[in-house]
């Protein structure tokens, strides 16, 4: 489908939001609390935060919840009854106000969940989610989408992309997919004719800092490098980077029961945890933090491109912002590019 360009006036934005809520969509939008901006279900437009470069967490939780039930079981007199989770009742939802880099993350997650067997639980959620992205007019020192093939006005993955066109507060709306078209159909009168807005003029300027293909080539021979140990010395091995990341998909499968019944759930896990790869025998293939840090970088910038044909990083910078010890991914990637093997 060709991208259709329209124009939305400042005061039409709220009307569009209200129209979506009125259509019974579950709308996730950025809300700021305790100084952190996260996607929450919002019914009231005034609660939405406008002043953020990036949300603390990515929106992946909508399609890949941190705890997702996969089946229920119940012990009965005949043994055990097992009921797979019914994926159909997932609500039609809209993610409002995500950044283009987050929308790219949708595709990267999708690659992981579909490269071999298809994860229909994930796919059902994606199918029912519409992404209304907002281009970036500002970037900070953590952002590096342009270094991994994105840009502040990237349409990839979004259903509609809104670009703030100057001080006036009006928006250029790019309707990218059929889902985006359906949003427009919810309030067609709000989508006016595009007066010919020059989108690029309003986007943040963010020169690329490294070349992801160069990094990828370099990583092929970088496994044994001492750089990993040097970089990860201050890493304390928590899972913050993985949990705020829009593309990290590592998970655990756990059973939880109360009395005779319970559920099996799929829940987030992180390659940064020391017990992630621990064998029951006590042997651990990735014993120290440098090996785990290497896995994180290699997986995103070498293994994923090779096996899944996508990079595992959108350049959103959340991992660096959320890191308690300032493990700055951009800085580390640049240093990998600079170090001689």
């Amino acid at each position, binding site marked *: 489908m060709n991208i259709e360009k329209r124009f939305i006036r400042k005061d039409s934005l709220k009307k569009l939001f209200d129209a979506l809520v009125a259509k019974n969509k579950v709308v996730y939008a950025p809300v700021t609390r305790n100084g952190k901006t996260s996607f929450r279900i919002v019914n009231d437009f005034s609660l939405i935060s406008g002043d953020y470069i990036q949300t603390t967490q990515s929106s992946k939780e909508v399609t890949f919840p941190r705890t997702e039930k*996969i*089946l229920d*079981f119940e*012990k009965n007199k005949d*043994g*055990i009854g*097992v009921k*797979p*989770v019914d*994926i159909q009742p997932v609500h039609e939802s809209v993610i409002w106000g995500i950044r283009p880099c987050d929308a790219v993350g949708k595709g990267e997650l999708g690659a*992981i*969940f579909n*490269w*071999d*067997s*298809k*994860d*229909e*639980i994930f796919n059902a959620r994606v199918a029912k989610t519409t992404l209304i992205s907002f281009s970036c007019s500002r970037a900070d020192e953590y952002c590096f989408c342009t270094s991994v093939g994105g840009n502040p006005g990237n349409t990839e993955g979004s259903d509609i992309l809104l670009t703030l066109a100057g001080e006036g507060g009006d928006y250029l709306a790019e309707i990218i997919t059929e889902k985006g078209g359906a949003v427009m159909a919810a309030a067609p009168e709000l989508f006016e004719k595009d007066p010919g807005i020059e989108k690029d003029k309003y986007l943040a300027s963010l020169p690329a800092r490294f070349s992801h293909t160069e990094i990828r080539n370099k990583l092929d021979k970088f*496994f*044994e490098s001492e750089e990993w140990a040097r970089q990860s010395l201050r890493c304390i091995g928590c899972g913050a980077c993985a949990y705020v990341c829009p593309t990290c*998909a*590592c*998970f*655990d*499968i*756990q*059973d939880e*029961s109360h009395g005779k019944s*319970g559920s*099996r759930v*799929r829940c987030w*896990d992180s*390659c940064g945890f020391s017990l*992630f*790869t*621990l*064998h*029951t*025998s006590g*042997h651990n*293939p*990735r014993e120290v933090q440098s*090996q785990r840090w290497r*896995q994180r970088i*290699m*997986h995103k910038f*070498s*293994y994923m491109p*090779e*096996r899944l044909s996508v990079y595992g990083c959108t350049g959103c910078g959340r991992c660096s912002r959320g890191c308690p010890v300032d493990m700055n991914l951009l800085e580390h990637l640049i240093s990998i590019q600079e170090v001689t093997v």
Partner: protein
Amino acid sequence: MRENIYLPYQMKIERVTYEAPGVKTFMLKFINEEDREKFEFKAGQFGEYSVYGVGESTFCIASSPTRKGYIECTFRQTGRVTNALSNCEEGSIIGFRGPYGNVFPIEEWKGKNLLFIAGGIALPPMRCVIWNCLDLRENFRDVTIIYGARSVKDLVYKHELKDWELRKDVKLITTVDPGGESPDWRGEIGFVPTIVEKTAPSAKDTIAIVCGPPVMIKFTFPVLAKLGFSDDNIYTTLENRMKCGFGKCGRCNVGKVYVCKDGPVFTLAQLKDLPDEY
């Protein structure tokens, strides 16, 4: 194709066999007739076995794909799930997802000699391929099995070892570590690599399949090399921690290789290309 890829087949424990201290074999039958008929696997593949309310655990299918209608698994009681499995009685229902992973290229081995080398609890993954080959015995030339364990009581599949011993078309060599023998032990005494060096057949036209604890593997490979086995003719299986079994949970990869998809079966030549992460 199952819509929910995490959904296990319901399996009934048909028979429990005590193999060795802490080691049991389950014969599992599909509760659903349709599942039973559709289910197919090949030697070398593994699955996720689960006790509802406790969790899932990964291990190989220990029965041969030539024996239809059921699968068998052998496990040692070590962690939470294997402990719970161990407490299951005949008739209880457990979950099974699979089969996952790649297979031993048995087709390619036609007309060759086979040398199986296993240590301790690593005979189960081997047993699958041994029976598979024995059931197609006419396809192969000499078959030699070298199996060692710490002590006589730690040898698993004792009744099958007897079967193999009696067969004229199989050469079976069993061994126990020094000090592990019983008064009536008639097999070899010594560590597996030493016994391999002493008793292995010629490397010419021979495929070696090696499974065992890391330390055994580490010392057996050089012996095989010395005997003239090429890296392409030595097979083994890797076991890394896994949760999903289909390349999503992110746990099992060794470099860019996913053990759950590209493995668990590897040739030594392939292993040498991998980083030391297993």
